[in-house]
């Protein structure tokens, strides 16, 4: 599993790996929002938690179709299926690699972009915390979606259609915790529910992902 993780990270940072594209996309979306809604500080501060969460979610979505597509095309996935590493482990390693190349950089970049949107001072800690807790769930759910559409030629758009509804609870709890944090309300409930979703996704979705990969490799 570690070997696969290291290989995927290496592939992501080598030329053509697309590392950093998600981050750039995140930056651009957040910069575009004030052009759309106007520059008033109050308005931006109010919508900042939601914008940052939605933009992070879209940026994570952007790189999902690469998770399995390349390995499927060049045959690596079939070879991995006959390797001693179970496909559940492959799924987890892939999700982990996706998180390290996408979710983690997004989380670290978010406070800077929050500054651009006049995010309330009290909310920064919650923004970091919720993204840190929520982006692994985004990667894991996305890996499942990528596995569902891996055999399809134009699976990217379909995958967005399948994955985005699955992202709803994560988004709601994540953004809600930041908003409550900004307004000084209690945040324990949404944080705990977010943690439940992430833990549940990581515990169960590798099995669903592996089952779907086996079907697609048939």
């Amino acid at each position: 599993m570690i070997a696969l993780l290291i290989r995927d990270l290496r592939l992501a940072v080598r030329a053509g790996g697309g590392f950093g594209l998600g981050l750039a996309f995140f930056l651009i979306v957040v910069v575009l929002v004030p052009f759309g809604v106007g520059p008033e500080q109050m308005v931006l501060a109010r919508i900042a938690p939601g914008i940052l969460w939605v933009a992070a979610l879209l940026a994570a979505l952007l790189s999902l179709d690469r998770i399995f597509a390349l390995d499927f095309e060049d045959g690596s996935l079939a070879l991995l299926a006959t390797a001693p590493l179970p496909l559940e482990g492959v799924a987890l390693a892939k999700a982990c690699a996706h998180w390290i190349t996408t979710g983690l950089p997004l989380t670290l970049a978010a406070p800077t972009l929050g500054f651009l949107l006049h995010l309330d001072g009290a909310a920064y800690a919650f923004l970091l915390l919720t993204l840190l807790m929520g982006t692994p769930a985004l990667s894991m759910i996305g890996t499942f979606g990528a596995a569902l559409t891996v055999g399809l030629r134009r699976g990217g758009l379909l995958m967005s259609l399948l994955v985005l509804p699955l992202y709803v609870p994560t988004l709601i709890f994540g953004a809600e915790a930041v908003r409550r944090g900004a307004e000084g309300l209690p945040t324990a409930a949404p944080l705990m529910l977010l943690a439940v979703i992430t833990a549940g996704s990581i515990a169960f979705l590798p099995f669903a992902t592996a089952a779907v990969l086996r079907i697609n490799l048939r």
Partner: protein
Amino acid sequence: MLQVTGLRCARGGVPVLENVSFQVAAGTVLVLRGPNGVGKTTLLRTLAGLQPALAGQVTCTGESAYASHADGVKTALSVTENLAFWADVHAETLPDDLFAAFELDELRDRLAGTLSAGQKRRLGLARLGVINRQVLFLDEPTVSLDGNSVRMFANWIRDVHLARGGCAVIATHIDLGLSALTLELSPYVAAPDAGGGMDEAFL
């Protein structure tokens, strides 16, 4: 080492081969022959467990590996990195004489993307030397190899793989120069009314 009895396998839900039975003993090679589309790839994938058999039994002592034209070579990794990855996944060490056996010595640090088709193919085959599996299912392993490389590969199969008690089932159209049993698949083509296809319940 490998025993197949009454195997029926399907491609795209349609039975293509039926009643396939054969044995492969340790240290021997079975070559599959037959016209295009007869089901060589389907048979190999079924044997390797990548797709379920409709009927019949496959008993295999020892772990198996499958290799096809798509050999999972990553163009952004070097030759050594490619092989080291498969060694890690299979919890094996990368044998140093492997590079010589597949004539990859001078290419060790080249990115796989800069290799020619034949060189890339040799790299793909070298994976088989890394993973140390007893039973090999090879689908057209010699595509885009020149005569010299084909001999080199046949030598590796004979002198290394078979010598350590492995066996192989190879689908190929060319003569590898190995002393091998041959199985012609044409007699096993499934009858049009062979059962077990996914449409069977609807007919």
